[in-house]
């Protein structure tokens, strides 16, 4: 791949995107290239590791494992870009904590020394969506200019998820009660962003709850789906493959357990951007989604 793009990042993949929704990975690479952002493989990266399931057991191991991933990017001399809120929680937050807490950093480096690595604190971590929104890197206008098949006539609801913007006081995104920046990006694709009740509510899957008590997690998801449907959305977009899994496969599980059907297509923002830039559903492996996206795809033909 060309190495002359203006902005290049180590692409941290995580687990769910490459191993369950590879369309997210493929579209992230292709859509970003069209926006002058190059995503390079981060060789040897692991799970971020899962902030809920893994961090709940032992935070110190969570710090050390995330730090190992950070070291790989430090060795490349590249900032990390990623496409998952869960990964953001681990990779961004541990980077932030280690940069600002000497005691924590020393502890982590003691462990990393056993595998001949050292965390130095030389890189930054970004969610790809925030890079798209950032005028210095890309900006909404550039995203709009890259569109060749506007999503005109569709209504798209946005799920921000939790771990990108919250906790607000430790992040840099501002308002977490009713943010609108992702809606701006959706609007840039020609779709109409719709507002719905309790937009910032969690998908229900986080903190290990999906694995611990599936029905409890699904009940939270179900509440969101009711609110989104009520607003007349044709699809839901998000920036987290784990939320995507919960909304997408979750709809099948909700049908099985609660007898309710929503048929709401769930698309990662990169998949949505891919469609708007003219990628075909096959190039995005949309058929891997549990919920049939045909209704939405027909609207944009």
């Amino acid at each position, binding site marked *: 791949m060309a190495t002359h793009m203006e902005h290049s990042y180590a692409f941290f993949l995580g687990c769910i995107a490459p191993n369950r929704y590879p369309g997210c990975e493929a579209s992230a690479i292709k859509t970003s290239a069209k926006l002058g952002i190059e995503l390079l493989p981060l060789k040897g990266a692991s799970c971020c590791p899962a902030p*809920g399931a893994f961090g709940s057991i032992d935070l110190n191991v969570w710090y050390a494992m995330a730090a190992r991933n950070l070291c790989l990017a430090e060795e490349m001399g590249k900032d990390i870009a990623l496409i998952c809120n869960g990964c953001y929680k681990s990779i961004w937050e541990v980077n932030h904590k280690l940069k600002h807490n000497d005691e924590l950093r020393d502890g982590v480096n003691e462990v990393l020394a056993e595998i001949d690595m050292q965390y130095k604190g030389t890189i930054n971590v970004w969610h790809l969506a925030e890079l798209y929104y950032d005028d210095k890197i890309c900006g909404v206008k550039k995203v709009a200019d890259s569109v060749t098949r506007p999503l005109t006539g569709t209504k798209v609801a946005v799920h921000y998820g939790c771990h990108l913007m919250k906790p607000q006081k430790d992040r840099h995104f501002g308002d977490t009660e009713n943010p609108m920046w992702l809606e701006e990006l959706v609007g840039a694709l020609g779709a109409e962003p719709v507002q719905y009740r309790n937009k910032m509510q969690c998908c229900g899957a986080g903190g*290990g709850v999906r694995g611990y008590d599936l029905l409890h997690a699904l009940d939270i998801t179900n509440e969101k789906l009711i609110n989104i449907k009520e607003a007349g959305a044709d699809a839901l977009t998000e920036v987290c493959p784990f939320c995507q899994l919960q909304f997408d496969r979750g709809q099948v599980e909700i049908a099985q357990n609660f007898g309710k059907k929503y048929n709401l297509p769930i698309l990662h923002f990169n998949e949505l951007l891919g469609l708007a830039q003219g990628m075909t559903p096959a190039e995005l492996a949309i058929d891997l989604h549990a919920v049939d996206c045909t209704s939405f795809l027909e609207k944009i033909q």
Partner: protein
Amino acid sequence: MVEKNYGNPELENKLRDRNYYVTDSNKDFSAEVKKLSGTISHMCYQCGTCTGSCPSAPRSSYRIRVFMRRAILGLEEEALSDPDLWLCTTCYSCSDRCPRDILPTDVIMAMRNLAFKTGHAVPKNFLQTVQLIYKTGHGVPNNDANRAVRERLGLPRDPPTTHTYPEYIPGIQKIIDHYNLKAEADRILSEE
């Protein structure tokens, strides 16, 4: 180990009893929660904004404010044996709204760490994630159906992670072994 077991009458009665017994208090517990969480849990004035913001509260007996009270009063056993401890989705809504600038979510994370450390029941799925990451580097590993789709998309069959470069896995195992985490997970899961 729990299954989410609310069918233990003795535990249920104990958790239902909201009286405060000085003898149940363990000051060290409060201090440890504060240290591990890195948040000012002792500043909580029990206003309930956290519970009011919590997506788990309306559909269960889980009350984050109750756990905050336990943190302040040092009610270790009550906190660590309550199956509700594992119903927090870590959404941080409570943390964004707490008028005292506390991060109740991180109090829950600290308590979960302490539950594991002190041998209290920990849900299986958390430990299985540890095992999977130890073995493959991924909490959610690749599979053949997905490999075929990746190929179709023009991606390598395995992502350029530990899946393609397994030589990185021993380093990961060293980190996890440093904390004896895998051995503990194996032990607890085999006691099933």
